[in-house]
């Protein structure tokens, strides 16, 4: 691997914790380490730090602090939202609606709920990965207790019509959850304007620490607890609070909100240049996701005739970190459910590549990828029986 150069283009997987965020966390490890539930002075410091962070999170999504509940990350928030509302409202109905391109934290939770007797509808998406609000509207029945549609997709970056979905759910008196794990820090989110009842977020996606997240629960939403035990988080989420993590999440989300506009503008420019440069240099490439309604930093491409993991390994050798929708890395042989859901054939889905740009990326990084990727593609195509076959079929014509 090239240890001299590191170009990190996998910000959707995780981001580095910003140094100033780490700085904010540090005092809460060894000095202000008190358990927030205790009554003495150092515990008050912890309590105040948590309150402050809760304010910061609330402000970022236009909620009030009493509606923010800390979790151990996006996964727990998604699990809690879905299981919590489904079981609390079980008497009202057994019907849940989500999309076919949700993160596994939502999909696998839905599958669990199906085993528990709930009926789940997985809405199709169009070729760009968009959910159709009209289809949602037609799918809601008087048995529907919950709709969960992600704010933006983690693989192809497509931004979903959340406000439209929220309005429909509000109209029909159905609870609306959105997994905003990828959206926070990249696009504006307002739970009031968007009629969102529950929202999941995860700090490590916006330059905060890993292992901490939050669930927004609108006042008045009935929801069962997921973790039982102590009286933390106003009796809704038990467990000694991860004070440094919470402080880090607060600092990170405030920082992200302040920077968001400039951040997205910058990323869009870099990403578009990367996209155009690559399509100029490589044949048989397609863009996955929506051409405009997509996360600023996301570029998802299918590069025909070659396989994603191979590309990643060669990129890694050159010091470039990216990810793919190829199944290989996850240990299953099926490629990404998201790429299949937008209609890609398996063999093309296997050859997909995701670059997600972030704070550290520069014009030089883009240039470096533009110089590095085309010869890698060339090399792997030379090796590929699919490409040989394709070339033969072209020669014949």
């Amino acid at each position: 691997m090239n240890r001299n150069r590191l170009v990190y283009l996998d910000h959707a997987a995780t981001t580095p914790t910003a140094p100033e965020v780490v700085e904010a966390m540090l005092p809460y490890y060894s000095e202000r380490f008190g358990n927030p539930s205790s009554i003495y002075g150092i515990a008050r410091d912890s309590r105040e730090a948590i309150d402050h962070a809760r304010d910061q999170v609330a402000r970022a999504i236009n909620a009030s602090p009493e509606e923010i509940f800390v979790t151990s990350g996006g996964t727990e928030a998604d699990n809690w939202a879905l299981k919590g509302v489904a079981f609390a409202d079980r008497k009202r109905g057994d019907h849940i609606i989500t999309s076919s391109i949700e993160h596994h934290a939502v999909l696998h939770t839905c599958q669990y709920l199906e085993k528990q007797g709930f009926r789940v509808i997985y809405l199709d998406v169009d070729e760009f990965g968009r959910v159709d609000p009209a289809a949602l509207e037609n799918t809601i029945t008087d048995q529907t207790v919950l709709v969960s549609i992600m704010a933006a997709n983690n693989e192809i970056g497509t931004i979903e019509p959340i406000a439209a979905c929220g309005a429909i759910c509000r109209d029909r008196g159905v609870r609306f959850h959105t997994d905003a794990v990828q959206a926070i820090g990249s696009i504006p989110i307002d739970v009031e304007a968007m009629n969102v009842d529950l929202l999941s977020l995860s700090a490590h996606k916006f330059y905060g620490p890993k292992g901490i997240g939050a669930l927004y629960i609108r006042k008045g939403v009935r929801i069962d607890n997921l973790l039982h035990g102590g009286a933390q988080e106003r009796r809704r989420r038990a467990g000694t609070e991860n004070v440094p993590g919470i402080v880090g999440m607060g600092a990170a989300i405030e920082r992200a909100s302040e920077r968001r506009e400039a951040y997205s503008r910058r990323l869009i420019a870099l990403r578009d240049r990367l996209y155009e440069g690559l399509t100029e240099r490589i044949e048989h490439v397609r863009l996955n996701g929506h051409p405009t309604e997509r996360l600023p930093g996301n570029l998802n491409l299918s590069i025909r005739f070659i396989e994603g993991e191979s590309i990643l390994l060669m990129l890694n050798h050159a010091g470039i970190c990216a990810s793919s929708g190829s199944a290989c890395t996850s240990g299953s042989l099926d490629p990404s459910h998201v790429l299949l859901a937008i209609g890609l054939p398996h063999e093309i889905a296997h050859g997909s590549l995701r670059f997600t740009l972030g704070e550290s990326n520069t014009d030089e990084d883009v240039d470096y990828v533009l110089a590095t990727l085309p010869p890698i593609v060339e090399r792997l195509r030379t090796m590929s029986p699919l490409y040989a076959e394709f070339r033969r079929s072209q020669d014949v014509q």
Partner: protein
Amino acid sequence: MYSEKVMDHFMNPRNQGEIENPDGVGEVGNPKCGDIMKIFLRVRDGRIEDVGFQTFGCGAAVATSSMATELVKGKTLEEAWELSNTAVAEALGGLPPVKMHCSVLAEEGIHKAINDYRIRNGLEPWEEKPGASHAHSDDTCEA
């Protein structure tokens, strides 16, 4: 994730490429599952004089193709037939469990190319040992 040996065979694959007018060809795998291997043999006096491969697939697929062809080169067809997937994996310093199916694919590719040679030469194809593992057999990819 991968051993150094795997990475070496992936970055510098041996025997990569088509052989002109091969005496036997075996193609295994399925694009749906994300890996295809194509093995080309040149056979002289019952011996594999030259061997080549083309592979669409992950790092382990390329590395096992490279190692498997390396291991059968110069061998008699009988010897080459005996090459097991575990021998390929071992020669690579091990493979992650989820990648063992690639070594199975390599074994199958060699077998298929040998039998292609035998059929072209009017011989009975050899039979796979009963109980031989097959790539993807217990996986979700419906090839």
